[in-house]
């Protein structure tokens, strides 16, 4: 709306990325958005999966063939990490909504915890996939 008011003074801008020292909580915050956008792609892939399944065996085999290729697996692995990071960091956000967990030391630990959960849970999921012979 500022653009439509030529007489208004320039509004103050909040400090942006370049003025902050890199820190684990900053990385977690940025990655929450990035992984959320990654999950947009993930949901679209679920939509494609449902469409392929409803279109018959041939379409399904083509679709899972693309997802099962090396580039497909890399994308799916990335989406798995996105899912578990966004999930863990989302829980951090829900706790913050109750006014808890804001102490720097606590926020640092929970940020590292979200990274750890993302890696461990994604690795566990892919190990189970491999053990079940689904790769």
């Amino acid at each position, binding site marked *: 709306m500022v653009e439509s008011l030529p007489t*208004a003074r320039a509004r103050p801008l909040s400090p942006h990325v370049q003025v902050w020292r890199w820190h684990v909580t900053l990385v977690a915050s940025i990655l929450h958005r990035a992984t959320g956008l990654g999950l947009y792609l993930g*949901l679209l892939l679920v939509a494609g999966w*449902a469409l392929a*399944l409803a279109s018959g065996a041939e379409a399904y085999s083509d679709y899972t063939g693309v997802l099962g290729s090396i580039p497909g697996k890399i994308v799916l692995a990335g989406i798995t990490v996105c899912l578990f990071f966004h*999930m863990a960091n*989302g829980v951090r956000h829900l706790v913050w909504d109750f006014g808890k967990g804001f102490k720097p030391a606590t926020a640092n630990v929970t940020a590292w915890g979200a990274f750890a959960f993302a890696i461990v849970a994604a690795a566990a999921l892919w190990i189970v*996939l491999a053990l*079940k012979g689904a790769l």
Partner: protein
Amino acid sequence: MAQHRTALGRARGLGSAKTGVGHFIGQRVSAVALLFLGLWGAWSAVTVASGGFDGAKAWLGSPVNAALLVLVALTGFYHVRLGTGVVIEDYIHKPTTKAALLILNTFVCLGAAAVTAICILKVAFGAGAA
């Protein structure tokens, strides 16, 4: 011109549009739902990935699986539309581009959610092509 406007007149339109609370609550309620749906979905992906076409059809033949996957699609695309909308509003400042992307975001999410739900129901009701 500017000096004839009151402080209130200048402030109007720059603050809350009185619709933010619905967005805030919707984002969080869907987040809580997706916490459970996401865990279920990740676990289900393992089952479906190892079953092939017939296995996937049989899996969706279970009403619980079909219902939960419809909920994943509806809740997921709702949540992702809200989140992506905020990202667009934050980083795209040109009003026409911003409006176009917000509308595109809504269309993609609604369209994909509808297609996903219909496809799931089609397979679940046994009408899927052989």
